[in-house]
């Protein structure tokens, strides 16, 4: 062990030695958790705290925040999501001061304040896949604090339906001589299945309460508007059907929930079952239930699970990925890879789009980050396999030139005004101001204009693949920007010309009568309808129940 080539293993052995008095077998008592973290972690360590999109190692996060800043300080946190107050407490209490992450939605305000007070130094804001990549290159954790459903006495872990980031985190940490500590909801004599083998883990604690999981992908159909129905009709008839999109990912909002709920009704009436939407990289959205039941969907691979969908997923094992035990297996790293390389379309909403088609969800005073959208919503230039949708998009982009590659369809769907009359189309993204305020290298753009292929609004569809100049692109965007200042500043003649060429298509041009856009088209109009469509298998969280 004295050789200079195995210092990391020696360092790991020292940490485990300090931890040993606090463990019984592999188990740490919840009451000893703060002391255990102070023993296992050293000042200056790079620590990965498992904060996912949904599943949170919340007990370990609170325990870390309760550690003494005299014992633990200058930590460098690497984590996907800052979702909980304790994730920020770690910085406010002087335990950590550096951060590399992906998404911080719920804590975006506090994070921005700490950056402005110079109490936190952000290395970079990543996409999920990018951050996972760096776990194996220059951001490998010294210690990771993860969340699992159950452990056995040996330290094998069962992750349950919400696998999410855990395998990527543990693999990077365990195989570079880091320390892997898990919080579990229960200790079992025999696990339903082993997701993380015991010799990749060092210790576990049975947390005082089950880990927090956010039902992030549940959209109540009763809140879907007729405008969203209209835009969903346009997307289905004007894009899904035209390109024959078989493999895709949907964003998280009501716009795409409307599309999911129109598949068994409107898309069915257009004869599209079996022709579109067969394979998905998608969390188990409750609003996808009617389309699954109608036979639209062949397969769904998921980043994580969704609260209440466990029994439905287990009962539809031909569609979802499930283990031998019957329960769901998700995996964010693989699903992001699937979204990047194996899907022909991403469609999602955003807050702001500029005249070049750059889109951003950044708003002033908040550092919200990116999550997975920039990865899903970008063309994978390394892709080589062809599909009809990909080839057609590539040919449209090439125009009269020769297409040597295809193109992923990246669709932004937005109503021209958001609530409180905030325009979705702007001359200048708030992201630029945020960059200046926060001293960032680049504006936090979610999806770059040169990756966006279509913009759908209530006014029409702009096909940016067919634009031949920056000026055309600008007018194509203005031409669907409605009554926003950007839309009203359009060159009407140029917009009509773009419409004649099919670059801009109005509902009339696609054969859609706006009067048909009613909520009656939704295959489910309430959460209760979704429960009924699932045959009672979907068990919505209490907050979504109103009966």
């Amino acid at each position, binding site marked *: 062990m004295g050789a200079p080539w195995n210092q990391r293993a020696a360092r790991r052995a020292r940490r485990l030695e300090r931890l040993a008095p606090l463990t019984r077998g592999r188990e740490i008592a919840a009451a000893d958790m703060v002391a255990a973290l102070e023993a296992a972690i050293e000042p200056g360590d790079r620590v990965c705290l498992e904060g996912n999109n949904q599943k949170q190692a919340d007990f370990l996060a609170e325990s870390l925040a309760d550690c003494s800043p005299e014992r633990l300080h200058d930590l460098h946190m690497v984590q996907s999501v800052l979702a909980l107050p304790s994730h920020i407490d770690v910085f406010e209490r002087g335990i950590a001061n550096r951060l590399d992450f992906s998404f911080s939605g719920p804590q975006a305000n506090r994070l921005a304040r700490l950056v402005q007070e110079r109490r936190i130094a952000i290395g970079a804001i990543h996409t999920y896949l990018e951050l996972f990549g760096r776990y194996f290159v220059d951001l490998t954790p010294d210690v990771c604090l993860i969340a699992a459903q159950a452990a056995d006495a040996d330290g094998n872990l069962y992750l349950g339906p919400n696998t999410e980031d855990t395998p990527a985190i543990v693999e990077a940490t365990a195989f570079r001589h880091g320390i892997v500590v898990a919080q579990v909801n229960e200790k079992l004599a025999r696990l339903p299945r082993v997701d993380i083998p015991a010799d990749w883990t060092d210790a576990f604690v049975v947390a005082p309460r089950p880990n927090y999981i956010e039902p992030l992908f549940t959209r109540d159909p009763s809140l879907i508007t*007729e*405008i969203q129905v209209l835009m969903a009709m346009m997307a289905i008839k004007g894009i899904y059907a035209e390109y024959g999109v078989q493999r895709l990912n949907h964003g998280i909002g009501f716009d795409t929930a409307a599309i999911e709920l129109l598949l068994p009704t409107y898309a069915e009436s257009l004869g599209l079952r079996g022709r579109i939407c067969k394979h998905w990289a998608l969390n188990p959205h409750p609003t996808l239930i009617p389309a699954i039941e109608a036979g639209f969907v062949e397969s769904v691979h998921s980043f994580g699970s969704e609260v209440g969908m466990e029994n439905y997923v287990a009962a539809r094992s031909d569609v979802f990925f499930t283990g031998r035990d019957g329960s769901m297996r998700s995996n964010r790293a693989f699903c992001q890879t699937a979204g990047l390389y194996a899907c022909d379309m991403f469609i999602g909403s955003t807050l702001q789009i500029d005249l070049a088609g750059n889109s951003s969800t950044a708003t002033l005073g908040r550092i919200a980050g990116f999550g997975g959208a920039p990865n899903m919503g970008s063309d994978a230039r390394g892709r080589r396999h062809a599909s009809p949708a990909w080839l057609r998009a590539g040919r449209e982009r090439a125009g009269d030139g020769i297409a040597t590659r295809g193109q992923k369809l990246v669709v932004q769907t937005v109503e021209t*005004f958001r609530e*409180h*009359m905030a325009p979705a189309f702007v001359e200048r993204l708030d992201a630029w101001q945020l960059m200046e305020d926060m001293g960032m290298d680049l504006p936090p753009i979610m999806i770059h204009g040169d990756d966006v292929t279509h913009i759908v609004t*209530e006014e029409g569809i702009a096909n940016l693949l067919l634009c031949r100049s920056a000026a055309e692109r600008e007018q194509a965007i203005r031409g669907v920007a*409605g009554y926003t200042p950007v839309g009203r500043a359009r060159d009407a003649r140029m917009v009509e010309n773009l419409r004649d060429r099919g670059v801009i298509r109005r509902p009339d041009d696609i054969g859609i009568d*706006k*009067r048909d856009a009613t909520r009656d088209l939704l295959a489910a109009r309430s959460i209760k309808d979704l429960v009924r469509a699932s045959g009672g298998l979907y068990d919505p969280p209490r907050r979504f129940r109103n009966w």
Partner: protein
Amino acid sequence: MERFTLSLPSVPCTRADAAAALCGVVSSGNLEILVGRGGAADRCDIEVNTSAHGFRDTWEAVLTDAVARHAAGGLALAINDAGATPAVVSLRLDQALEALEDRA
């Protein structure tokens, strides 16, 4: 609340006399449009009550286009808005005015 009235040019509606009886009210959660008989046959009189301040020119643009798309002359529209977007306003107006045209 902001309140203003507009009188915009429009093709005469052949059913203006019966408009109120035919159409009555088109409403959803955040928007209500009442259709009634107006003044001049080639104008559409519109009264807007809106919860959003400072968007009068946006309203004017939306309404000018809407009554230019349809035969709304001789009608009076009362619009009560509780936070509807221009997209919703346009869609509702189209629904209300097309319904009148269909019956003409």
